């Protein structure tokens, strides 16, 4: 119903396209955002993902218009809006702190953007009712924000952000203040709602799981720079750097300089182990001897077995020896932590059906196929 209405009004196409061209924001010598360019297609759900301080909020505020970039342009549907003030950008915004108007009822909070656009009262009421239904809070019109729980407040804030069909929905860690269960429920609801309305969404989070479940594309930021901009699957399977590999999903990172063995195969030198490289798994250019690389091995790709006492070298192309230092049961999987002779750790994941029966302290052998590893570079 909500969607039909927007179609019949016909004035606003669902979401807008967004382009960032060389956006930078400097504070003195701090480069909060450093030359970020990316394009978001209409209707896409994009997440800005990165560690705390990586520039996510700064970039989002540049998109919203709260901050003027030191360099670069912001284009909404091809139009340069870099100099357009916030209130004329036709955006919806959701903050981690909810930011409801404390002196206004729920209904008047949600009606606020409509009133600002000059809509008449009678029309507003119907849209407010619909918006409240779409966030599963029917009948909450007359409550005051102080009478709502955190989750309810964020639902109201979401209703307020979408009620006027903005061309962009911007969210800065919208679920950051909520408990885990509620966060997961709202992730699904927000995603569903934004799809139904065809909204273009830019969401900020430091939670990789949230980024993974919600996004069409993830813009991975580190130190203000765009590390990788791709679908979650692509970042997971083809991380452009160790930073990207480490951020999305668990990863074992093996670093070193490649050498070429007598038989022509590329290997990464490893103490108490042997790591062959499959050149086809290289994310960037074809690797060669002398290249400094990072080999990414996902915990799920690693096989583990007890080490025989004979001390014979295993014949597998990729193997490492180590001592099992911990066995952790993490929900639906078994997590093994193996300490290597050089002090580094390798994480192994097993399904609960294929549990590895061993006690910490035992010597183990880790093996994997070189095709399941990814060769990338240090970021």
């Amino acid at each position, binding site marked *: 119903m909500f969607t039909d209405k927007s179609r019949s009004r016909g004035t606003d196409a669902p979401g807008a396209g967004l382009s960032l061209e060389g956006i930078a924001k400097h504070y003195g010598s701090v480069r909060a955002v450093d030359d970020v360019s990316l394009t978001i297609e209409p209707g896409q759900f994009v997440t800005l993902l990165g560690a705390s301080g990586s520039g996510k909020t700064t970039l989002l505020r540049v998109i919203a218009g*709260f901050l003027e970039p030191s360099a670069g342009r912001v284009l909404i549907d091809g139009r340069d809006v870099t100099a357009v003030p916030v*209130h004329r950008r036709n955006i919806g915004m959701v*903050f981690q702190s909810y*930011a409801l108007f404390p002196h206004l009822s729920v209904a008047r909070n949600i009606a606020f953007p409509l009133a600002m656009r000059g809509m008449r009262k009678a029309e507003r009421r119907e849209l407010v009712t619909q918006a409240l239904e779409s966030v599963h809070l029917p009948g909450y019109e007359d409550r005051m924000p102080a009478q*709502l729980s955190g989750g309810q407040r964020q639902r109201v804030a979401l209703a307020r952000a979408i009620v006027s069909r903005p061309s962009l929905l911007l969210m800065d860690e919208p679920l950051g203040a909520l408990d885990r269960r509620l966060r997961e429920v709202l992730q699904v609801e927000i995603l569903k709602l934004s799809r139904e309305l065809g909204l273009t969404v830019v969401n900020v989070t430091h939670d990789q799981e949230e980024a993974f479940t919600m996004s069409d594309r993830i813009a991975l930021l580190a130190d203000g720079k765009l590390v990788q901009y791709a679908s979650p699957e692509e970042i997971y399977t083809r991380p452009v750097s160790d930073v990207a590999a480490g951020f999305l999903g668990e990863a074992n990172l093996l670093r070193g300089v490649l050498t070429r063995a007598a038989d022509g195969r590329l290997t990464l030198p490893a103490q108490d182990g042997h790591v062959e490289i499959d050149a086809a798994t290289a994310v960037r250019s074809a690797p060669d001897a002398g290249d400094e690389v990072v080999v990414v091995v996902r915990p799920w790709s690693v096989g583990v077995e007890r080490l025989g006492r004979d001390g014979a070298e295993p014949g597998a192309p990729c193997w490492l020896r180590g001592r099992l230092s911990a066995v952790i049961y993490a929900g639906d999987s078994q997590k093994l932590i193996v300490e290597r002779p050089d002090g580094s750790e390798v994480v192994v994941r097993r399904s609960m059906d294929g549990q590895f029966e061993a006690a910490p302290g035992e010597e183990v052998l880790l093996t994997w196929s070189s095709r399941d590893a990814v060769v990338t570079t240090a970021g």
Partner: protein
Amino acid sequence: MRAGLFVRVFGLVFAAILIIPTVVVTATAFTEGSIITFPPQGMSWRWFEEVLTDPVWTGAIRTSLTVGVLAAVIAVLVGTSLALAAARSGLLPSSLVVAVGMTPMVVPLVVVAIGVYFVYVRIGLYGGILSLALAHAVLGVPFVLVNVLAALRSLDPHVEEAARACGAGPVRTLLRVTVPQILPAALIGGLFAFITSWDEVVVAIFLNTPTLRTLPVVIWGQVRSGLEPSTSAVATILTVVSLVVFALTAAISSRRSRSRRVH
């Protein structure tokens, strides 16, 4: 323990010193006799009756109320504007605005009074009720400024940003989102400004004319020409009004903190 006892005794003595004069004055207002005595003789409302039917006293009460309300309104407008300028505009350094707004609290009252007197005589404002209200408003501005500034600083800045994102320009954001949120604080500041004017005597004496005398000025005149129980009655009225206004500020702040409660 001994320190605690000392603090308690000291507190009691101090409170007694503060309260006893008020109690004495109030008690003498209810005397049946025609001179001020403590303890009062009997118990009667006759001096209150006399005050409320004497045109000198009722005129002074009316003048005081008018000046106080006008001063409070002006102080609220000016103080709130200054606070907004300090906290939000970015045009002037906030510390400068605060320093200017707070000077009436620091400068001795006599100096303010003489200064206002000279300026008013020079520019021809002397003698008007609005002129006195204006001078009193200056004394009330710091209360509004401090209160509103504190309220502004405790606001979530994202709320105003949310308004901007909702399509409200800076002015509409100010009027429809910022100001309503600081209204209780401005109101409390205004009530303090009213009390300041209500019992202010130095500036009021400098600016008094035969037709422009506030309650404290008339009391001052009466006291110099000999005390009567009617003066005590007026003083009691003065105190009661102050207490009522003070209770009002307390009510507003407790309501505000209740509506702010977070779950």
